[in-house]
């Protein structure tokens, strides 16, 4: 049984992943926090395919691939459209108006999984999945340009079992732009002042004590932890050629099976590893 019954031991368990192909419109129209070089679409696609391939072939997840939608340049970043925890899915109301329609496809695919679906309909609420960090014990929600208090409240109402604490996020797009879970009790965190400050806030708010894995680069702190039955701890992290120093830190995790994945192109439009999938642990087939 999922839910609290599963406990932290089940953290990182995952059976399904929802991903979405990237539209060509991404190159020019995707939102970005800072101007920069144009995205090399072909390369971005290759990287994404590698990403999906790892989830599918290497880790054996059932990957549900949504087709790209050219009218939604950011649609590859599926994470922002839904927060799934155990058997419950919250369809978000993304902070960027241009992205609100991304939720529709997400809704359809999640309905197919027979999850308890909650939709964020409040017009005053915004929430990007990228601002939601689930630690296995509680949620932290970054209050950022994309996510507001009301959105966090709705998340709290949706996942009533868990404490939901808010963390101000100022200098980056999302909370998870500089942190993520790298293990059942392990928070990967960037070294920037903002990241460290956010971490402290989280630690102050939590009744629980987390270990932390500090990596030199904020972007590299966004990694994907999975607990795969046949492989144990699995960590998808940014490739050494992108963030060599941070990769070294990850390489110290002896118990983890490490899978470096480059996200060079999508990073130009604020993409990171967690952004490109919604992970679901479907324990019961109803």
């Amino acid at each position, binding site marked *: *049984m*999922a*839910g*609290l*019954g599963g*406990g932290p031991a089940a953290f990182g368990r995952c059976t399904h992943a929802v991903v979405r192909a990237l539209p060509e419109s991404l190159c020019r129209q995707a939102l970005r926090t800072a101007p920069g070089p144009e995205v090399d679409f072909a390369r971005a696609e290759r990287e994404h395919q590698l990403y999906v391939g790892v989830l599918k072939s290497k880790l054996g997840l059932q990957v549900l691939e949504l087709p790209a939608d050219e009218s939604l340049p950011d649609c590859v970043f599926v994470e922002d459209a839904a927060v799934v925890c*155990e*058997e*419950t899915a919250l369809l978000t109301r993304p902070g960027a108006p241009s992205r609100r329609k991304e939720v529709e496809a997400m809704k359809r695919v999640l309905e197919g999984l027979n999850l*308890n679906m909650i939709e964020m309909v409040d017009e005053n609420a915004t929430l990007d999945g990228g601002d939601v960090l689930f630690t296995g*014990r*509680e949620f932290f*929600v970054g209050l950022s340009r994309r996510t507001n*208090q009301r959105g*966090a*409240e709705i998340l*709290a*109402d*949706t*996942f*009533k*079992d*868990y*404490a*939901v*604490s*808010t963390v*101000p996020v100022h200098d980056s797009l999302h909370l998870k732009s500089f942190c993520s879970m790298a293990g059942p009790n392990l928070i990967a965190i960037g*070294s920037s*002042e903002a990241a*460290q*400050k956010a*971490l*402290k*806030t989280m*630690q*102050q*708010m*939590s*009744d629980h*004590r987390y270990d*932390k894995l*500090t990596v030199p680069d904020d972007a590299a702190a966004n990694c994907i932890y999975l607990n795969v039955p046949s492989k144990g701890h699995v960590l998808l992290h940014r490739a050494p050629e992108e963030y060599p120093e941070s990769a070294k830190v990850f390489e110290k995790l002896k118990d983890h099976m490490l899978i470096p994945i480059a996200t060079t192109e999508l990073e130009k439009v604020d993409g990171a590893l967690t952004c490109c999938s919604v992970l679901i642990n479907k324990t019961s087939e109803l």
Partner: protein
Amino acid sequence: MMTEVGSETEVKKDSEQAGADKAKDKPEEASDTPENQKSRKAFSEEALDSSSVPVPTSQSSPSSQKKEKDSSESKGISRFLPPWLKKQKSYTLAEPKDEAKKKAVGEDQVIEESECQLPEEVAQPKKSLEEAATENQHNAKADEKEEKHSVSSAETQPAKEDGKEMEVEKVAEEKEEKQVEKEKRETKEVQTGEIKTENIPQKSPKKIKTVQCKVMLLDGTEYSCDLEKRAKGQMLFDRVCEHLNLLEKDYFGLLFYENSDQKNWLDPSKEIKRQIRSLPWLFTFNVKFYPPDPSQLTEDITRYFLCLQLRQDIASGRLPCSFVTHALLGSYTLQAELGDHDPEEHHSDYISEFQFAPSQTQEMEEKVVELHRTHRGLTPAQADSQFLESAKRLSMYGVDLHHAKDSEGVDIMLGVCANGLLIYKDRLRINRFAWPKILKISYKRSNFYIKVRPAELEQFESTIGFKLPNHRAAKRLWKVCVEHHTFFRLISPEQPPKAKFLTLGSKFRYSGRTQAQTRQASNLIDRPAPYFERTSSKRVSRSLDGAPIGISDQSLLRDFPTAQGGPAGDKVIDIEGVGQDKLKEGSREENGSPVKTPQLELIQDGKNNSLRVDGENIYVRHSNLMLEDLDKTQDDLLKHQASINELKRNFMESTPEPRPNEWEKRRITPLSLQTHGKKEDYISQVKMLPVKEKQWTAMPWIAEAKPEETDKSSHETLDIVEEKKQAEVGREETVVIDETNKGKMQVATDAGETCKVEHLSKKDSSSLPSDSSSSSSSESEDEVGEYQPHHRAIEEVIREEQEEEEDTNRKREHQEKIMQHVEATTEGSKLNVPVERTAQVTAEALVQENAVTIATEEKNFSEDMKQDLGEEKEEEQLRLNGDVSHVDIDVAPQIICCSEPPVVKTEMVTISDAAQRTEISTKEVPIVQTETKTITYESPQFDGSTGGNAGVLLSAQTITSESISTTTTTHITKMVKGGVSETRIEKRIVITGDADIDHDEALAQAIKEAKEQHPDMSVTRVVVHKETELAEEDEE
């Protein structure tokens, strides 16, 4: 109002009789019942009778009245209390009467108001009696027999009161007799909820007024019994627990409701009547402290009651859960109460009579059934355990929520839980203050304040204020905080029964056992697992959803439980099996458990601290009501903020490294040498907040060893030491010094006195006496409560607490208190209680002092250590290690009573820091050796104390002197153990200065001076704790 209350009560009766839940519907009807009328008559008769009672009393002088009251009041305690304490008590007694008249405020104001109220007392007794009679009337539920009985006892009352002296002696017998009588009735009435109207009044030789109490139990049944009107809460609670066959009762409590949503915990140490005032004697048995890890409970029956409570909490929506969790918990409930799913017996609707959630859908029920099937084979006890394992992870488990507004008037909720205080806005957690971070909890009028330890690298405490709906609410919240803090954070050694009455100086203290104590006690439970039936949760009527009514929400409306069929037999067996396991587990833990608990907690804290948020948001968010402002000018505040910012900036620039914050480190150090890189900053702030510089911690002393414990703690300590790069040298003195001035010592304790403090804070101490009296006479609305976790530092798990005291405000308070003590003014009884105790203890100690043998005896004494007293700030600059005698003169010496040697605290804290252990550096090896030795001594001490084996602390004295760069705190403790008296002097010297300071030299100097000062003593332990700013971290 009378009618209203009466009818309400009546309703309950009706509903009980009917065995149905119609209570809400028929108030009017109920009030007309013949019974009711009869009982009223009876009441008024009684009222007449009883009104005559007070007359003699009122004629007598106030003081004699007090005495009299006292004698009847103090019964059980009396032999433990020195006579003048009793006197103080009497105030408390006498007062509430008039008070009740004027305002329906809490029973706790007594103290504050006692002085001003006295004159009125004489004039008002009659009224107050009427009031009392009214009270009776409200208890219309009481059966007629009761009435008659009480009438008759009322008749005898005057005589009794006249013969006060006699009464005292009689009390004991009377009680016994009553007990017998009551028990008889109990057996009849228990669980029936029915009221017997035709009882023959039983006249016991000494007639005593009794009142029928009803208690709604967690399984929805009602327990009723007769209690003497003056009975304390404890008596009722004990009865209930006995009825429930519950041994681990410290997690539970009795509630009474002022109105539908204002629940109050019945204070076991106080008279029931004075707490509930005119409310009906109707209580609800509830979980008060939710054990964070229910699997550590010893008995299944305890877990069962906890499950029942949680089921109520969940069904009523107080404990929110997701759909899935509702279903899961529901399925465990089914398994526990019905056993394995049986498709034949359990038809589709078998669960609809259970309530699993505030709003229960068909879908949920299906899910519950589905899950129920998967639990096949789980015994009821296992199902309960599983239920608890899931429930305890819910984020709102054990969180007691209170409505409040922040400084900006925004609605928030304050949640009190085992770990601290949580702040919610809507459903979001916006802040959290763990107990270790909270230095002080106080309230004034409808404001509630917490003073928070400075964050890393900050120098200032901040006080955060919240606005509660009213004064009562603020006080309630404050009490709950005090209780939770005490229960979950403190450790106290086993106490003899008197401890219940004596332990806490103020009424505003939790008087029960702490979790550590209750766990210890539970380990001793030696009985076969009691048989009990699981029933009940299914009787929760759904109609109650969201309609919490005053007394015991759903429970009143439940059917009388019928025994569950088949599974019961199996259950018994299972239960026993499990019970055994638990017992074994318990005994295994026994040795270490007292130690362990704190350790675990501490580890966590350590980590928290090291990673602590800098707290800026806290200031921003809630700081408008800051108390700080009391002693700071606007400029100061700005400066403060500026320096915080600066520090933060600096900190941010440096590598963020997990390092224990200053407080954390200091906790561990008795004798500390600190270097602050930012000397200027510090110095400039010193006047405002000398506190930071001065801390001292209790040091361990004592000399017998218990091998295992010793070993363990010794390396733990070692680890820590190095991690923090502090060398510990211990100094322990076994020489008895008689000069420790026992005579002049005062225990000043009480935090409850804040109002005075605040009034006084700006005044000269010379004006204190008058001031305090005026403030004490202030209205109840001005009542202030204050609680410093640190007061109990000795018993504290948390070392930090000892460091808190030094702020100016505090000092003034102390001074004031001392003044009060000295003058023996009629100030609040709270204050006096501790003092009295001390006095008594002193006496005992003296007696034993002669014997000089090594012995480990029981410590029968535990008291809060009021270190703050010792913190009297000497504005004169004393040179480093300013000599004790000199200081003595200036500072009012105090007796510090402690349950355990201060050492313990240190130890534990040290241990707690496991997370930060590192290798011992070679450089420190010699020191480490010394320390190891010390530890060997310390450990047994702790062990002994928890085992109930400890000395009596005769006196403790703390003297603090300061100069620009040093603060010396001298702590003299006198212990009597067995027949041996030991005096230990602990000196804490805090040297503040640049990196230039030669620490070794400073240490050498300090030791030398210490030796010189006490040539007849030996230095047994030296602990050096060095704290440096980041820049200097490389220094040894």
